[in-house]
């Protein structure tokens, strides 16, 4: 792989806290290696800002290997930037060229208020899980792991939905700020497994109710969520969610 260095102009959203008004600020970074990750480029910028006596840019990040779901930058109009099936922390600078201007914003959604700069509050997702995103089994209640054979295809499909990292890119990508992809991934993960069957109806009803309460928008099937999801969660999960929801609505005793 050819390595090269680049100079970039950055246009970054700065906002002191959720109450204050934010604005874009311009920064320049020089001699950025194409081998760096996008967040390492931000580290360089922050070191520069600290050196110059300015406030460094606040952003969420932790594992830096694409699995914890903390990072959440909206880069050049796309959540997590230009690469497919990727998180911000795994975006590398070879995606950019010398002289590029890169615009970086936080996730924008009513349900995700800005905490500071590029950091937002995604606790709405936790509350959606609290509404039913689990199987009610206390520790110690379990039967032998092989007592319930599960067809490989079902287990694989369930796993594909369970890969969701809860980053919120689907919400950020959606023009309605809908959380349907996130929600449908959890409903599918559990609905596809026999262990999830007893609570199947109440789960979907309660989780959808909580999603609405949090202020996420409705789904209009534009597919932007699927296109930006770093874990390639399929939009067919939304179809399954709708089926589960309608089915539960018609047949639930409550």
């Amino acid at each position, binding site marked *: *792989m050819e390595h090269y260095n680049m100079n970039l102009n950055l246009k970054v959203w700065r906002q002191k*806290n959720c109450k204050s008004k934010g604005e874009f600020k311009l920064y320049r970074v020089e001699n950025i*290696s194409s*081998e*760096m*990750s996008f967040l390492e480029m931000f*580290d*360089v910028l922050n*070191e520069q*800002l*600290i*050196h110059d*006596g*300015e*406030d*460094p840019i*606040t952003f*969420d*990040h*932790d*594992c*830096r*290997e694409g*699995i914890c*779901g*903390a990072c959440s930058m909206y880069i050049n109009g796309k959540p997590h930037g230009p690469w497919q099936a990727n998180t911000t922390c*795994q975006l*590398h600078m070879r995606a950019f060229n010398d002289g590029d201007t890169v615009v970086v914003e936080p996730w924008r959604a009513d349900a995700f208020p800005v*905490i*500071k700069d590029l*950091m937002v509050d*995604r*606790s709405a*997702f*936790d509350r959606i*899980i609290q509404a039913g995103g*689990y*199987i*009610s*089994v206390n*520790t*110690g*209640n*379990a*039967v*032998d*792991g*092989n007592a*319930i*054979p*599960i*067809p*490989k295809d079902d287990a*694989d499909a*369930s*796993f594909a939905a*369970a*890969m969701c990292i809860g980053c919120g890119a689907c919400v950020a990508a959606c023009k309605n700020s809908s959380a349907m992809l996130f929600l449908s991934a959890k409903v599918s*993960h559990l609905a596809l497994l026999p*262990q999830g069957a007893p609570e199947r109806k109440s789960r979907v009803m309660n989780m959808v109710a909580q999603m609405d309460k949090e202020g996420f928008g409705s789904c209009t099937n534009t597919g932007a969520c699927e296109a930006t999801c770093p874990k390639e969660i399929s939009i067919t999960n939304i179809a399954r969610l709708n089926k589960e929801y309608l089915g539960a609505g018609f047949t639930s005793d409550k």
Partner: protein
Amino acid sequence: MDDRMSECFLGVIKNKNLSAERWATNHRNMLDAKIPAGTLDEKWTEYKGHCKLVNPANKRKLEVIVVGTGLAGASAAASLGELGYQVKAFCFQDSPRRAHSIAAQGGINAAKNYQNDGDSVFRLFYDTIKGGDYRAREANVHRLSEVSANIIDQCVAQGVPFAREYGGLLSNRSFGGTQVQRTFYAAGQTGQQLLIGAYQALERQIALGNVKMYSRHEMLEIVEIDGKARGIIARDLVTGKLERHFGHAILLCTGGYGNVFYLSTNAMGSNVTAAWKAHKKGAAFGNPCFTQIHPTCIPVSGDHQSKLTLMSESLRNDGRIWVPKAKGDNRKASDIPEEERDYYLERRYPAFGNLVPRDVASRAAKERCDEGYGVGTSKQAVYLDFGAAIIRYGKIEISKEGKDNASQEEIIALGKEVVKEKYGNLFDMYEKITGENPYEVPMRIYPAVHYTMGGLWVDYELQTSVPGLYALGEANFSDHGANRLGASALMQGLADGYFVIPYTLGNSLADEIYAKAIETSHPAFEEAKKEVAGRIQKLMGIKGKQSVESFHKRLGKIMWEKCGMARNAKGLQEAITEIQALKKEFWSDVRIPGEIEEMNPELDKANRVADFIELGELMCIDALNRNESCGGHFREEYQTPDGEALRDDANYMYVAAWEYAGESKWNLHKETLNYEVIKPTQRNYK
């Protein structure tokens, strides 16, 4: 008075300062491991049969604080909530689901013997003790092995989508240091799936009101009242405000301290702060120098690098590790013919081959690179090659299809499909980071800091030497000795949280049912809060010139070079001096921008790095004290003629539990390890 205790007293007498005296009064008998009587396989059953219980009505009156929400913390908080305790859980991340357990890739061990290949509770116990180079406590490891099967059952019941065979039953694979297939997995995302299982159980308890969750909070002090841990001071990272929280007991599930090396596979936020505060309040730190350097990580690529990425050990099932036979061979991997490649693990360790334990594989890679056989631009890398596996799998697929004369291209294409199904996400990650396609060219890998076997000293009940204060998961020292086997960290975290602490905590809380919750206006809370506030103000007041990051990098460099994969007395002594100087410089020249009462990640980081610096010194002291090589601790002075670790069982078969005794002062207490069942021998993977 046994040997263990005499060492303990000696240590205390040596040091006359206040902290040591207090430790002596409060924690006199605390190096008692409290191992139950009976034969090894009866201990845990006996313990469970006789430990004290708290009735459901009383559980509701007892408050438990859980710090950290990784596998150990989330499983403990959920299980204790289910039992009816009032739980408060804390994490520094924005959601408990993001704790670093999520990044574990390969799998989780359990002695299920589903494969009928000779596994058993004893075999898992034996492998873990041997893998740990005979520096772990037998009773704890046996218990771990006993509960391992329950963990899998529990996770399946929660809906963890483990990999399955076509018959619908659970699939297994092999990991290093074992000769059976006992590892359960969910592609390369096992940690994520297990954590989500525990997280969902935790969220359910939050919804039921049994657990109150405090995310974006960092614990900065333990509050001790009448010799017991009774609360914490936590900082709300969004507002910067300090909070007081009472608990009848406190569980630290705060993970490991690999980030003391700056570059590691740990998450950026992983830190030692909670454990270190506990240590400074009297909790002994066990075997701090025992660090695991994982053999298969993506090599460092430049000075700007912020973290290292692991390539799962499961890849060693199919990947073959090699370097060129000639020194300084600059040809591309594909231009080096088979007979000019040195598959050095297969050569040196024919019985285990590429599946030797991590410490052995890491040292072997370092040895080849140090000798000048390394590959890539930095020459600090070896190849992990899937070429043979692709052809092997391709041939199996061809034979399934019943084709007789398939071309090499067809075989390779089908083989790649199989490899993709097994390791696809890891291969994608490798390509994103390096820009190279590992289906076409071998991966380049090099060892990196990954896990810390050392941690807070705990007894059989997971209680530290401070009564009421417990440590679970990677935060404690107990189960992995001097080297952890692959797929055992997830097992231990969940064993501690789901199946151990619900029993052992009850045993001591049964005596607390008359203890009313203490108001957080109590002077001890007041004093602790003042201490924390003073420390933060001091940090912010330095207003120096150098960033926190720059200090952290310098600390990491000292640690990696002098307390890393190979250590020697001279280097460790130098490191101690250098760290002490670095500490002085940090406290006089660090620059932290921003305010105290706001979201200020630089301040959070400064708090953590200050503690890492102190820990780094203790690690070097511990490594210097241990005049032997064992597991991940390799002292260059102590090796066999063919370069293997040379243990000294006569003098070092003990847990080094260090007691904090004031700035740069520690007293050593020794917990002798008694092997009743396993006879320690020189580890042999040949």
